[in-house]
């Protein structure tokens, strides 16, 4: 079995709050796995711990407890970064560099040189459709163009994992669609994608597996088709069913004393958005309950 692209095991991240002896638990006992070649979406409300998790995976932060690995290498090990391409939310690269110079800069940091670097930079510019803006300084780029050049720099060294933090934040629908197509292209090329996004429709469209995080905890994780399936309903899938058989099934359903009705064939599904909202509501209720219990126990001690 191949090594997972990302392996997060029992990750907890605690931030001390100023000089007070108080702490903020940003992520608590979180585990997730991004398999090689899959597109994984981590979704959650603001402040749920998505970015913290991503930063720990990238080695920009250290875990308080637990471990994170990228293709089997500890995230804090600089070698793990050779396999990663990262696009932060709303990136602003060096405005004094042109698009081409930006790609050369990041390529050189990854050890690319000479003709190989030049060809790769041109290839990436073509991929993100920025050839016309090749020699324009980034100070003159629109938000969508910055996002696309960001994606190009993320892929410059041919990483096996691309980490995208809100890749379509603030991008118009056309730019958003281009980025979505690029994610499909990455998937086709066998590159693993670890995606954080608020755009649930987009996550539903591109992700193979999804994790829903709230209040620093993983509430639900699994293949998208399983997550959005309605568990208390059943779908029968028949192969080569004759019209007579189908007719008998319809008759059987019609004769059901409970008044069942065959509405349509196919698996009934909810939407990721509805599932997400349900989970967030559930997590908030659980948190409120926890807080109430804490308050009650404090009151009882006094």
């Amino acid at each position: 079995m191949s090594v997972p692209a990302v392996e997060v095991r029992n990750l907890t991240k605690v931030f001390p709050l100023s000089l007070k002896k108080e702490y903020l638990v940003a992520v608590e006992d979180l585990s997730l796995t991004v398999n090689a070649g899959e597109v994984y979406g981590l979704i959650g409300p603001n402040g749920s711990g998505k970015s913290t998790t991503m930063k720990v995976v990238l080695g920009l932060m250290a875990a308080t407890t637990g471990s994170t690995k990228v293709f089997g290498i500890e995230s804090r090990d600089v070698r793990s970064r050779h396999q990663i391409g990262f696009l932060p939310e709303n990136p602003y690269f060096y405005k004094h560099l042109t698009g081409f110079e930006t790609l050369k800069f990041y390529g050189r940091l990854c050890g690319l040189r000479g003709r190989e670097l030049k060809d790769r930079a041109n290839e990436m510019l073509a991929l993100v459709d920025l050839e016309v803006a090749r020699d324009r300084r980034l100070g003159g780029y629109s938000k969508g163009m910055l996002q696309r050049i960001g994606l190009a720099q993320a892929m410059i060294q041919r990483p096996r994992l691309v980490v995208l933090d809100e890749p379509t934040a603030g991008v118009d629908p056309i730019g958003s669609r281009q980025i979505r197509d690029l994610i499909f292209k990455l998937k086709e090329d066998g590159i693993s994608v670890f995606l954080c996004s608020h755009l649930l429709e987009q996550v539903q469209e591109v992700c193979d597996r999804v994790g829903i995080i709230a209040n620093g905890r993983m509430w639900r994780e699994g293949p998208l088709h399983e997550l959005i399936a309605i568990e208390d309903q059943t779908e029968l899938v028949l192969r080569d069913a004759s019209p007579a058989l189908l007719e008998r099934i319809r008759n059987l359903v019609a004769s059901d004393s409970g008044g069942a009705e065959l509405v349509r064939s196919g698996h009934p599904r909810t939407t990721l958005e509805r599932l997400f909202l349900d989970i967030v509501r559930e997590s908030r209720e659980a948190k409120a309950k926890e807080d109430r219990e804490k308050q009650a126990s404090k009151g009882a001690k006094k």
Partner: protein
Amino acid sequence: MSEAANAETEERTVPRVPLFSPGRIWVLTMSTFTQLVRMKTFYFLIIFAVLVAAASNLNLLYTPAQKLRMLKDASFGAMSIFSWLFAIAATAVLIPRDLEDRTLYTILAKPVPRLEYLLGKLFGVLLTIGVALVVMQVLFTGFLFFREVTVLAAERQALEAQGGMSPEDIQAQLELIRAQGVQWQLLYALVAIFLKAGVVAAVTMLVSTFASSTLFTMIVATIIFLVGHFHKLAAGYWLHELGDSLVAKLVVKPVIMIIPDFRVFNVTENIVGGTPVTTGAMLALVGLALLYMAVYSAVALYLFIDKEF
């Protein structure tokens, strides 16, 4: 698959990323240099050229030697102010700006150790200061040479017209003027200014690794720079007054140790005044500056290496 085979497979999949790469540092150095150049830093050179031209054409009631000395004073003064001010301002801005713009994330998400990032930034600032100082030195030396030639010609003419002096006396008189002209020692002054700026940049980088804002970094670095010019003197007085007291141990002695002594780099005044600085003294100064830079960079790395973004 056996454990040994597994380990071998894993070994093969781990990319070879050198733990320390001068090539990556050079990439970051050149990027920082380009950034600073494109921030129109070198426009200062135009101001400098105007200043030197004005100083070289001032015809105050000075002796010829004093005229040359004034030109050197003004030029080295401007070079010194530019270098330390630039070292503080540029270094204080670079890292916080990378953080605010999230450029730091994209750089550190590549296989770039934090040591290399810090060194690349520091060397980029030093390269910019070095290039600017060399250009200023060339400009200033050109003006000084031109001024020296014209002053010498005018003085020779005046002394010969005055009469009553032997050619040897005239030559001796002119030598006194030449001593204030273009000399190899001027390069030592340039090196000393550069070294001082290097130490200032290293101190500023250290402050920027824990500071919460650019403004705070600039203020603290400037205070350290100013205190570094008199703290040894003040410390001597305080240690004499306080003896081996707790205040002396907890405040005065740590301040002496932490803050560099910037006065040792003020060799320009000696050189301008005609007192030569020996090569040995210059080498000692280079060694001291490198030591200061290494220590401040090491502490900066210690603070930066586990910093969370």
